[in-house]
């Protein structure tokens, strides 16, 4: 269970159908700041690897002259990972493949806006 001031934000996302984990992660170190995870979801792995992916996308996009990256999404055969960052934190949503991506994207961006 979430134990930090970020708990309400995490809870607002985890309640969506198909979401199996929500994590707030340091972008540079890939360590979990807070998380709400269903049983069996490897939070440390999602945190480290998604933060790394997000960081890579952000740096690559900047190097390619595309400016700051706001939203990131990885789709796979059996699941999706959504991420958005602010102030060196990355909000990560782990979900099943069949979800309403549009709705989750909007909810995620709203949650990120509310980060301090």
């Amino acid at each position, binding site marked *: 269970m979430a134990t930090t001031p970020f708990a309400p934000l995490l809870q607002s996302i985890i309640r969506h159908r198909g979401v199996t984990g929500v994590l707030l992660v340091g972008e540079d170190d890939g360590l979990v700041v807070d998380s709400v995870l269903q049983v069996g979801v490897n939070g440390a792995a999602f945190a*480290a690897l998604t933060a790394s992916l997000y960081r890579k996308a952000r740096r690559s996009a900047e190097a390619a002259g595309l400016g700051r990256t706001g939203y990131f999404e990885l789709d796979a055969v059996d699941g999706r990972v959504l991420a958005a960052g602010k102030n060196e934190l990355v909000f990560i949503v782990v979900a099943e493949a069949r979800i309403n991506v549009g709705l989750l994207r909007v909810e995620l961006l709203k949650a990120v806006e509310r980060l301090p």
Partner: protein
Amino acid sequence: MRMSVAASWVEAPLKQFVDDARVHYAVLLHPSGQVLGQYGFARSVDVMTACALAAAIDASSRALGMLVEGKAFPSLHYAGRERQIFLAEVPAPGGRLLLLAVFDWESSLGLLQLYHEEFRARVGEMAPPIAHNAPAIAADFEKELNKNLAVMFGRA
């Protein structure tokens, strides 16, 4: 790949760790400072220096951990401006070993922790129980030893 190993079983897990964690340097060493395998260093003498220092850090931080917390720290992380250092214990059947890794923004502490866990598991599976030192040097090695020392000391 700039990798060298002192024991063949080290190569596969160390290579996997380097590939996964994308580190600049990685060294598996004995707590005494003896290198078992390394990636990234060009000169063997530099590896030995890194190992000596890593062993010293491990020894002193273990003692510090025992002093302040009653138990040793399982891993250490130092974040520099450009590069970071990760030093962690790797239990092996023949006794505890150490993993030293140096990385930059291409990797992260979270990734190092993740892949260190995998590395520990692989080492646990692959390391032999005890390292055997079979006879190696020819019985009449003294002549070569003297010659090499003389070269080193400019007496040749």
